[in-house]
């Protein structure tokens, strides 16, 4: 464990009259400490632990509940990712269950997944809170194919966002191409209905062009939809799993 990951000494040359202040800046030196269990092993019973403990105890029963079993580690990465695929499929499935109808696809913004991975093994409710901490609602939206094309280009600017199964597209020069939805090429004259968060529907992540369209609130948090999906699978002894299957193909990489 590197205790100091960086160290620099800077010497400044002050020349004559240009140093008019009484306290002359004579040098700057930077370093950093990684906080690990070896940094400060003895924290039990410390001043701060005493402040934290009552809060932690209030949370632990609910947050430590195991809601699923991951067959392998799900990772967030550039472009298509196993973690992104799992989340998008989960919310699509829950939206369809709640609405009693099928939707064309579901998305999650790339900044919306807040931890880099879900490890293999038991997954707790608390881990899903960390994956998706925001109190955003799950919503659906109906828009013309032209707006879908705009949305895919927007997602392409940041190497594609998590998207549900049945969708595939290529990203070249930060533009989306060969967009297939439910195994058919995107039709600009069609209308599509998809699943997202109210944050995005209201123009979050610079999606101002979505604000012109109304959305339907499914009155469940995006996070809770993921948790309920996991619980349904868990009861049926189906593990949490996802594969990379060519939903997003980066042509420039």
């Amino acid at each position, binding site marked *: 464990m590197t205790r100091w990951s960086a160290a620099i000494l800077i010497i*400044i040359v002050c020349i004559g009259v240009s140093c008019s202040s009484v306290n002359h800046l*004579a040098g700057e030196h930077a370093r950093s400490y990684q906080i690990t269990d070896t940094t400060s092993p003895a924290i039990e019973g*410390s001043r701060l632990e005493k402040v934290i403990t009552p809060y932690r105890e209030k949370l632990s029963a609910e947050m430590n509940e195991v809601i699923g079993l991951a067959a392998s580690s799900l990772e967030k990465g550039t472009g298509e990712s196993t973690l992104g695929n799992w989340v998008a499929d989960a919310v699509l499935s829950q939206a369809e269950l709640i609405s009693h109808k099928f939707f064309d696809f579901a998305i999650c913004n790339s900044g919306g997944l807040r931890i880099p991975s879900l490890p293999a093994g038991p997954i707790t409710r608390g881990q899903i809170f960390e994956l998706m901490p925001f109190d955003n609602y799950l919503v659906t939206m109906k828009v013309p194919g032209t707006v879908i094309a705009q949305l895919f280009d927007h997602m392409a600017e940041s190497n594609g966002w998590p998207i549900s199964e049945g969708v595939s597209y290529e990203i070249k020069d930060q533009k989306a191409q060969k967009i297939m939805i439910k195994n058919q090429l995107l039709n600009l004259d069609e209308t599509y209905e998809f699943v997202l968060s109210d944050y995005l529907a209201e123009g979050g*992540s610079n999606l101002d062009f979505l604000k012109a369209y109304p959305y339907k609130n499914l009155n469940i948090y995006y996070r809770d939809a993921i948790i309920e999906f996991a619980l349904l699978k868990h009861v049926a002894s189906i593990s949490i799993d996802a594969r990379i299957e060519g939903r997003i193909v980066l042509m420039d990489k």
Partner: protein
Amino acid sequence: MDRRKFLHQTAATASFAALGGLPMRSLASPKITKLTILHTNDVHSRIDPFPMDGSRNQGLGGVARRSKLIDEIRAQESNLLLLDSGDIFQGTPYFNFFGGELEMKLMSQMGYDASTIGNHDFDGGLDGLVKQLPHATFPFINCNYDFSDTVMSEKAIPCKVFNKSGLRIGVLGVGIALHGLVPLKLYGDTRYLDPVVEANKVASHLRNEEKCDYVICLSHLGYKYENAQVDDIKFARSSKYIDLILGGHTHTFMKEPHFISNNENKPVMINQVGWAGIVLGRIDVMFEKNAKNRCVTCQNQVVR
């Protein structure tokens, strides 16, 4: 960059030895005052260390450990500033269930001197932020959010001067554009002002009227963007009178600080320490006090 010479060393102790060990010629030994700045950014409600579950950051971070480390450094350094660059809130159930109360209490216990406001500090709405302020013993510093038509009015300050053993240290803060990033219903009537324009006004005040020896800007703009959006690098380039930018938002783990020439061709140091309290950053700044118009030790320490 012509005014600063950089000497890279691998161990901090070695560099301090080098400082003390340089020949002082025939001049009287000058008075050196050291300021120690400790900083975090984007801690995102990470109270407990990442669990030992095989995930990428397992075992890292944790407020109690960070506090202990800070206490150890405090015991050694008399002039210390502990600063945060925003996004205190959102990331673990501690925020969802307690609204940021615990984060504020713990930062106060650790003796934070100031923080700026990150985009996720709006996640409980302006009311949610105001509600938690009584738990904070430190100020929130920002100069480019106009809160005057909101409940946050006069709850944040544009800058603060800290006196440390005769040093005057100015701290200001800047925040990121909210439109398209934070839902409107959360930031309400907050007006985002150009961070470069506002920060240069405040930094000029700190340097010229408040006679600050050193000016620190807490920034939640983000380290670097490929597009035209203002980031710490562009901000530094257009800045004046700012010595150090402690950044956030982009969760960038910088191996070492980055230096940028400002609009007077003077160097500005930029640093950022990732997220989640995995890393505590430290910057020691040495000042030489004398009655002369020039810095004696500095001239002795020219490294060529």
